[in-house]
C-alpha cells in the first residue's frame, strides 16, 4: 500500500506541475482527486489491507490527499496570476511616508512616564505657578526668614515677595489648602536655581513632587512607595537605601539612593565608584507644614518626596550633559523616535 501511495504522489505532483492551462489542471484534478480518481481508488482498497496496518495506511492516504490539494491550489494561483506579475522594478528603493516621524521630548516623556506610574498607585496630578510667592516656596515650608536653610537653594528673586520657585514643594501647601486628607498627589513642573550651567547643572530644570497624607501614614509607606517606583521605572533588582538628611519641610528627612543603573552597585564612572545613585529627597511631612496648610498637626501624618526629572532622564538614556536636554538639536531628538 505504501508503495502505491508513494508512486501516486510522484506521478500526481509532476502532472500538476506540468499543467499549462486551467483546463489541463482541472482534468488532472478530476483524474487524481475526483470521485473516480486514483486517490479515491486507493481509499477504497483500504479494506483489503490487514487490520493492524490499516490506521497507518489511512493516515498516509489522507496526507497524500491534502498534499495534492495544496499543490493544485498553488498551481492554480500561478496560472491565474501570470498576467499581473511584474519584473524589472528595484524593490530595494526606500519607501516614503507622507511626513517623516517627529519626536516627543525625552525629558517630558520621562515626566509623563513617572506620572503614569503614580496614577497607577492612585495619585492625582496637581499644578502650581512657576512664579511663586516667597510664602509658599519658603515660609510655609518651614524655611524661617533669615535662616541659612534658604541658602540651600540659590533663588532668582522677582521682588521681595515673589520669586521663581526653586522646587515643586510649594504645590504641597497649595494642594493641602484645597483638599482634605486622605490625599495622594504628584506635582511635576519646571523649577529654577540661580547657579551657573555645567554638564550636570542647569538654572532651569524639572522636578516631580509627591505627597501622600492620611491618618496613619508612616515612613514605611514612603519606603514601599519609593521601592515600587524604582522597580517599575528602572526594572526589578535595584536595591534602595535611605540616608538621613535635612529638608526644612520634612522630618525625618532622607536622601534616597538606588543601586547604580549602570554597574548594578559594583562602582563605575556614573556613580562615582560608590555603586549608589542619589535619586530623590524625601521624608515625613513636618507638622509645621500641616499647620501652614491649616491642618490639625496631630490629626495627620504623611510623606513627601521630590526628584529631578532631568537626572532621571539622563540616567535612563545615558545622557552625559544636561545641556543636551535644552539645546533641542534634532540630531539629539531624533534618537528618541518612538519614545512617546
Amino acid at each position, binding site marked *: 500500500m505504501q508503495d502505491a501511495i508513494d508512486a501516486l504522489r510522484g506521478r500526481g505532483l509532476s502532472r500538476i506541475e506540468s499543467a499549462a492551462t486551467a483546463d489541463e489542471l482541472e482534468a488532472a484534478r478530476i483524474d487524481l482527486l475526483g470521485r473516480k480518481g486514483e486517490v479515491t481508488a486507493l481509499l477504497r482498497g483500504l479494506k483489503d489491507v490487514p487490520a493492524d496496518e490499516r490506521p497507518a495506511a489511512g493516515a498516509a492516504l489522507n496526507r497524500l490527499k491534502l498534499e495534492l490539494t495544496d499543490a493544485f491550489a498553488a498551481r492554480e494561483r500561478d496560472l491565474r496570476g501570470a498576467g499581473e506579475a511584474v519584473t524589472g522594478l528595484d524593490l530595494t528603493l526606500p519607501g516614503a511616508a507622507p*511626513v517623516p*516621524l*517627529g*519626536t*516627543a*521630548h525625552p*525629558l*517630558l516623556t520621562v515626566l509623563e512616564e513617572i506620572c503614569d506610574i503614580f*496614577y497607577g498607585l*492612585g495619585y*492625582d*496630578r496637581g499644578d502650581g*505657578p*512657576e*512664579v*511663586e*510667592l516667597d510664602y*509658599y516656596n519658603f515660609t510655609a515650608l518651614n524655611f524661617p526668614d*533669615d*535662616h*541659612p*536653610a534658604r541658602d*540651600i537653594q540659590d533663588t*532668582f528673586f*522677582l521682588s521681595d*515677595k*515673589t520669586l*521663581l520657585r526653586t522646587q515643586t514643594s510649594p504645590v504641597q501647601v497649595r494642594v493641602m*489648602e484645597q483638599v482634605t486628607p486622605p490625599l*495622594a498627589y504628584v506635582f511635576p513642573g*519646571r523649577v529654577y536655581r*540661580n547657579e*551657573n550651567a555645567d554638564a550636570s547643572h542647569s*538654572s*532651569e530644570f524639572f522636578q516631580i513632587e509627591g505627597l501622600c497624607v492620611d491618618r*496613619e*501614614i*508612616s515612613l*514605611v*509607606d514612603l*519606603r*514601599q512607595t519609593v521601592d515600587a517606583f524604582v522597580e517599575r521605572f528602572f526594572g526589578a533588582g535595584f536595591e534602595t*537605601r*535611605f*540616608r*538621613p*538628611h*535635612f529638608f*526644612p519641610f520634612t*522630618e*525625618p528627612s532622607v536622601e534616597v539612593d538606588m543601586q547604580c543603573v549602570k554597574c548594578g552597585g559594583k562602582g563605575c564612572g556614573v556613580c562615582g565608584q560608590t555603586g549608589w545613585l542619589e535619586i530623590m529627597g524625601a521624608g515625613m511631612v513636618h507638622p509645621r507644614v500641616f499647620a501652614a496648610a491649616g491642618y490639625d498637626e496631630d490629626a495627620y*501624618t504623611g510623606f513627601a518626596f521630590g526628584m529631578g526629572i532631568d537626572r532621571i532622564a539622563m540616567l535612563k538614556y545615558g545622557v552625559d550633559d544636561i545641556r543636551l536636554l*535644552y539645546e*533641542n*538639536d*534634532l*540630531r539629539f*531628538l*531624533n534618537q528618541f*523616535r518612538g519614545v512617546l
Partner: protein
Amino acid sequence: MKISLDWLADLVSWDDTPEVLASRLTAAGLNVEAIETYEQSWPGVVVARVVECGPHPDADRLSLCKVDTGDGEPTQVVCGAPNVRQGLHVLFATVGTVLPGDFKIKKAKIRGVESRGMICSASELGLGEDSDGIIELEDAPAVGTPADELFGHRDTVLDIEVTPNRPDWLSHLGVAREVAAIYGTKLTPPPVIKPPANPGHGWKVEIEDYAACPRYTAHGASGVQVGPSPRWMQNRLLAIGQRPINNVVDITNYVLMELGQPLHAFDGERLASDTITVRRAGRKLSVTTLDDEARPILADDLVIADGDGPIALAGVMGLANSEVTESTTTLLIESAFFDPGLVRRCSRRLNLVSESSYRFEREADWDMVLVAARRALYLLQEHAAAVISGDAVDRSDPDRRPRPDLPLRVHQVNRVLGTDLDLERASDYLRALSLTVQPLSPQVEAKTVNLMVGVPAFRRDLLAEVDLIEEIARVHGFEFDGRSGRQASHHAPVHTREDEVRTLLRRWLPAVGCHEIVTSTFMGRAQLDALGLAELDPRQQCLSVLNPHHGGETLLRTSMVPALVDVARRNLNAGAPAPVRLFELGRVFWPEGDKRQGKHELEHLLPEEPRLLMIGIAGVTARGLGGVPADLVELTGLVDEMAKLLRSELRCVPGDVEPYLVAGLQWEIRDARDRRVGTVGRLGQAAAEAFDLDEPLGLLELDLGRADLTPAPVTYSAFSRFPAVKRDLSLLVPAEVTYEAVSGCVRESGGNLLESLELFDHYTGKGVPDGVAAHGIRLKFRSAKGSLEGATVDRAIEQILVALSEKLGVRARTS
C-alpha cells in the same frame, strides 16, 4: 566642612579605615562627599650646609655658593636670597626635584655661572608665606637628611556636607561626638586652662541689647609674643584648607575648627578704653574690616565698640583698627553668642561670609562660649608665651531661660516611623546621642507623654518632638519591616481636560512630523524687541529677575516665538533637512494678565501663566493651493485636524493680528465661542532679519488655557447605507470672491441631500480669464431613504449654479 583624621584622632578613637568611617558617617547623616589625602612631601629636597658663599662675578644681588649635601663633592649653586651666608643649614632642592606649582629644578647657567639646584624659601616649598629669604634651619640637622623627615606630613581629610540644621558638625569636636556615638567610644575633649582664681583683668564689658547679643565674654592675656605657630598646628590648618598666618590668628582659627566657636582676638593696646560695648552702630558709617575693605554699615548693625567707635562687626569680622600685629603683646579674646538673624543680615548685605558668620548665623553653642576661650588661652600659653592674669568677664542676659525639656510620645514615634519600639529602646537611642531622658508614663498609647528629654546646648536643632523622632530614626536605621498605614486606594485618579489635551497633542504632533522642544523661560530684551510689538501690547510688560546670574537673560518670556525661531535657526544652520517642524507646550508669564485667585492675600502679585502651544515649520518655499505658502496650508490644515483630535471647534479666519507676521498672510484661530485664541502666519522679514533667520518660517500659536476645548460628547448617530452620488463642478470664480463665500453659498443652496463638498483643484493662468480662478469642487449627495435618482441630483446642481451665479457672479466652466 573638612575634617582632618589626624586631628579627629586627638578627640575620639575608632578602629576602621577612612573609607569605612566615611560610609558610617554618611549613613548617620554626615554625607562624606570626598576622602582626600593631604601630603606635605618634597622628594629630592635635603638638608645641606653652605660651605662657601661669595659674590656672583657678574651680578650684584646674587651669591655664588657651594653647598654640602653629604654625598661627596660640594655642589655649586647661585642663590638670590639676602640672608644666605656661609655655615647656614638650609633646605636644598637637588637637580630633578619638582617643587609645588610644578616647578622643576634643572641644571642652569645663571649669568654665565653654572648652578646645580636651588636653596629654598618657605614659600617655594609651600611651607608658609615667607618668600623674602631662604629657610635657616636651627639646631644644625645632619646634612643629607630628607626635608620630609623634618617637615613632611600626611593626613586624610574627609569633606563632609553639613546641612544647615547641624552647626555642631561644623567642628572636629562635633564630628568626634558622632564618631563616639557610632563606635561606642569615649570622647576626649582637648585641654583647656583652669580659670584663674582672681576675677577680672581690667577690661569691662557692656551689652546694650541682650536680644542681639545674649552673651559676651572677654578674656585677657599679656606678654604675648607673636610669631609662627607650631608646625603641627600649621599642618592641620593647611590640611583643611586654612592658611597659617601667625600663632595668635592661627590659634583662634584652630579653636574655631576644633570646637566650632568663633573667637576674635583684639590687640589690647590698640583699644581706646577699658570698656568695650556691644551695641548698634547708631548711624551709618564706613569701616575698614580685617581684609582691608571699606564697608558701609547701617545704624542697626551690631558692633563691638571701644571709646572711639566700632572695633568689630559682631559675629562677622573684626576691624583693621584693632587687628593683632607682629608687635602685639596684649590680647583681648572675645567669645560670644550673637543673634543668628542679625549676623546673617549683616553678612549678606555686605556680601561678606566668614567662618565666624557662617557659624553664628546657624546659632552658636551656649555652653561652648567659655570652653572655647579657655582652650584658646591654653594654646596661647603654650605657643605664644601668653600670661593669663585674671578670669573672664562673662556678661549674659539675666532673663535668659534654659531650654525646656521636650515631651516624647513613643506611640507617636511608632506612628510616624512605622516601627514597633518600646519605651526602653527609644530611651536608649536618645541616651546614645547624649540626651537626658526622664521617664513619665510607661503606657505607650496615643496622646500619652512617656518621656521628658533634655537636650544639650550643642543640639540647637532639637526643638520639638518631631526632631526627637528623627534622631530615633537615625539611630534605629532605615532597614526594617514595619507598619504601613496607607489604606488600599480605591481612588481612580482624575485627569483634567488640560492633562488630556497635553497628552493627545504630545502623541499626535510627532506623528505629523513635529519635534517637541523645551526652551528657556528666560528671554532677552532684544529678542522681545525683534517681534516689533506695539508699545501698549501687554506682552511688552515682562517680569524680570532682580539677581540674574552672570551672562544670563533677565526677562521671563511673554512669548514663545523667539525661542522657537532660535531653535529652528540653529537646526537649519547645523544642516537639518528642511522642513524642520517643531512644537512646544509651554508657559509664558503675563504680569498684566488675569490675576490669580488663591488663598493667600498676596496672590495678586503673581502673573498669569498661560499655557501655549507653538508649532513652527521652517524652510518651506513651495506654494500650495491658490498660491498660499505650503507651510501655512499645512498649519491651517493642522488646525482643522487638531479640532477633530480634540473634538472641539477651532477654525482659521483670515485676519492680521501680529506685527511680526506677514500682513495679509495670517489667520486668527477662533474657538467655539468665536473668541480669538491663537494665530497662524508667516514670520515677517523684519523679525526674521532681527533673529538672523534666512529661511521661511510658518508659525502657529494657540492659547490652550483660554481656548474652549470642551470635547464634544461622543454619541453614535445612524448613517445612511445608501450609495452616494458624486458630482464634480468646475467654477470660474472672480478674484474678489473667496472660497469661503463659494463653499458657503453651495452649502446653503445645495439642499439637505448635499452631504459634503471638497475643493480638489484651484487654478489660475492659461485657459482661465484674467482676474478669475477656476475652483474644482467635488460634491457628494446622499439620501437616508434610498438610492438617489440622477434627476434629483441634477435639480440640486441646478439650484446651486443659479445661486452661485446670482449671489456671487460665479459661473460653471464649460469645457
